[in-house]
């Protein structure tokens, strides 16, 4: 049987040759992402913004009356509701923001929720209520803080681990790659105004996990090659390492994609955001492992001496005796 080979043997792509332009582009992308996050803002779902989200199915219609719904729910006086289709044409989620002043009032979110549900049920008798989430401003604020805390804690803890297992340059490179991935994902969410919920936090952590996987596989090979080829210039050695692991990188990304794409196409609507974020993360994570994490090592000053075992006590005594230390 002839086996598939996705990447030809002995690839010799000069990844590092383009490191400066790629790095500049990446930095610009990171800056653009943060600019987007700060100007357009993130479209927080009820988990993070507080308020009420009702999910309904219009059982006897082919299509949900979105415009009509917007008007009817809007007449309740809580501003324009966010109405999004999810899953089938006749399934929508209706999101009502909490008014600023309701943030501090206990029970305000629940009360608004009850009114929205009552309104929908009185206007559309044949609607199936699939669920609703009511989150008070206080809880939403805690979710936001917890999420930011979880992200930062995870990134730092992981960088420390890499530092311990490799060298400090690798820790910094890994951390920067993660920062890149998280920034670009957030930028994506700001750009397309996709709903940002608790599940997306799970997705971002999964992206961190996947990107780390990639980064570590490349780093592991760099560490190995640094020990093996003591004379090779570092950029060349990095290219060699990335090329050697390229077959694995492509194959793994591809297998993950073939598992994720069906989930995107046929999976439950509630998982779409999560799956989309992870899918995007596979590309971003792979890119950052190759174009951010590796070149940084050149600039941070990794040399072929980086993984030489620390000099022994005897060596040191000898050197001191010679008057060199």
């Amino acid at each position, binding site marked *: 049987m002839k086996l598939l080979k996705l990447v030809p043997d002995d690839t010799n792509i000069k990844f590092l040759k383009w490191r400066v332009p790629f790095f500049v582009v990446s930095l610009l992308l990171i800056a653009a992402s943060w600019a987007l996050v700060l100007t357009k803002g993130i479209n927080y779902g009820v988990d993070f913004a507080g308020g009420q989200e009702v999910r309904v199915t219009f059982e006897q219609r082919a299509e949900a009356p979105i415009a009509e719904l917007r008007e009817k729910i809007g007449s309740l006086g809580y501003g324009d509701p966010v109405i999004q289709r999810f899953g089938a044409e006749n399934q929508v989620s209706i999101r009502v923001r909490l008014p600023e002043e309701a943030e501090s009032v206990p029970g305000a979110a629940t009360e608004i929720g009850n009114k929205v549900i009552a309104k929908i049920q009185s206007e559309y008798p044949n609607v199936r209520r699939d669920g609703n989430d009511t989150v008070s401003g*206080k809880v939403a604020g805690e979710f936001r803080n*917890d*999420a930011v805390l*979880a992200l930062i804690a995870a990134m730092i803890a992981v960088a420390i681990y890499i530092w311990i297992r490799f060298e400090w340059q690798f820790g910094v490179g890994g951390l920067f790659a993660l920062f890149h991935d998280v920034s670009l994902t957030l930028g994506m969410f700001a750009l397309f105004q996709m709903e940002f919920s608790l*599940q997306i936090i799970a997705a971002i952590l999964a992206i961190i996990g996947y990107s780390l*996987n990639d980064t570590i596989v490349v780093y592991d090979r760099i560490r190995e090659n640094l020990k093996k080829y003591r004379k090779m210039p570092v950029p060349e050695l990095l290219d060699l390492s990335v090329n050697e692991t390229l077959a*694995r990188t492509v194959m*793994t990304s591809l297998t993950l994609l073939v*598992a994720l794409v*069906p989930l995107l196409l046929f999976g439950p609507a509630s998982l779409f955001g999560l799956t989309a974020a992870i899918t995007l993360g596979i590309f971003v994570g792979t890119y950052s492992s190759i174009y951010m994490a590796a070149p940084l090592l050149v600039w941070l000053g990794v040399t072929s001496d980086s993984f030489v075992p620390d000099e022994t006590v005897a060596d040191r005594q000898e050197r001191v005796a010679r008057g060199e230390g």
Partner: protein
Amino acid sequence: MLEFPTWRKIWLWGLTLVACLAALPSLFSTAGVGWPDSLPDPEINLGLDLAGGSHILLEARADQVAAQRLENMEESVRSLMRDAEPRIRIGDVATTGGQMSFMLDNPADLDRARELLLPIVNGNGLTREWDLQVVDGQRMVLSPTDDGIEQAVSDAMDSATEVVRKRIDALGTREPTIIRQGDTRIVVQVPGLQDPDQLKELLGQTAKLEFKLVDASALPTDVAAGIAPPGSQIYNYSETSDFAGQTVAVRRLGGIRGDSLTNAQAGVDQQTNEPVVNIQFDQQGGAKFAKLSTENVGKSFAIILDGEVISSPYFREPILGGSAQISGGFTPESANNLAISLRSGALPVDLTVIEERTVGPDLGADSIRKGLLAMMIGSVAVVVLMIGSYGRFGVYATIALVFNVLMILGIMAGLNTTLTLPGIAGFVLTIGAAVDANVLINERIREERKRGRRVVTAIETGYKEASRAIYDANVTNFIAGVLLFLFGSGPVRGFAVVLVIGLFTSVFTAVTLTRMWVAGWLRKARPSDLSL
């Protein structure tokens, strides 16, 4: 690496099979097949997002506990001083700024007063509950200690959790989960409950019932203007009562609290046909009620529920049997809710719903079906890709994947954890990690072969060299997963659980098990070349 002693094989297979067997009850129940009762059946709990149901997060008002405590303190002080022999006269009682203070009419009573107060101040002996100060030799100031308040809030939350449990049990819903969370919160999860309104109504009711005398001396104009005579307090009538919108002056002290009830049942008044709640006092409460009604025949009293007057009948005659009837514009449902609330006792503190999530069962089932379908398609694609790329080694990887999935399910069932929607995505990711491990190993073996190593050495080196990266990658993911579990909540935790369990099982199946199979094959077939 090729040496796999028999004991090690038995141990590895044993571990695999035990974990996989634990998954069977869950798989059977999903397929709708019965599982024999005689066998143990650890089953995976489906999260509310999959099974449908309601999740409610309640928060208590901690400041209320402090206020209530202060009020109780005032009553204790008054009765202690009144019952002292000879009586200690006090005046200028104030509860402001979170403190309670009063003036002794006679400074000579100071030592006796202090003696009387000591037991309350010291509390249960473990924590000092109040600080007692004497100002100007005559004024005594009691201020609550932080420890005391903390203890009081904690006690209040314990009993509030118990009250919530009783009320939900009275609704007859199946398998509710009621857990205290943090200092002032209670999580309530009721699988299958789609309309949480009755539940919320029931939990929103403090059910603090009081019987207090109406202050007949108050001028109607003052009452209407919200001015209470000394020793009285203005109350509003509840919206459901006959006097909605009006106010009444009620004597502040000397009433009876509803916490000495032994029973409460919804019923119908024989004469008016109105829904009512019949209550029954315990012996002590009954005696108090008898005394109150005997001394005040012909006077009117207020039945106060959660700070609102629901009715204000007259004592037509002394009520000696210890039972009474509460009326006040009830519907049959609200009478029933009140009866449940009164039976389960008053909440020591108000609870507010701060988060509520409800998922209809249709959506949950639909999600599972779609999720499973997508996973099946994805799995087939992965298998095709793996076997197409790595041949025999791809077959091993695939079998390892199947064991991986079964082991995750089995361990989850064994640990009694909950599978949520994001958990399904966690599954996909874990499969990715397992696939990556095999890809790393197989690509490395290819590489080593290309460098001209012999088959056995190439495989040996492949496993050894790849394991390092696999190990590092899994530890970092493990760190991320643990942090996700620690800082995340609800559905995110569901994701983290699957991820962390999956990391262990994927290393076990993708590295250890495949190595055992490869070693077995090598010993038997002794191939001189690899198709890889």
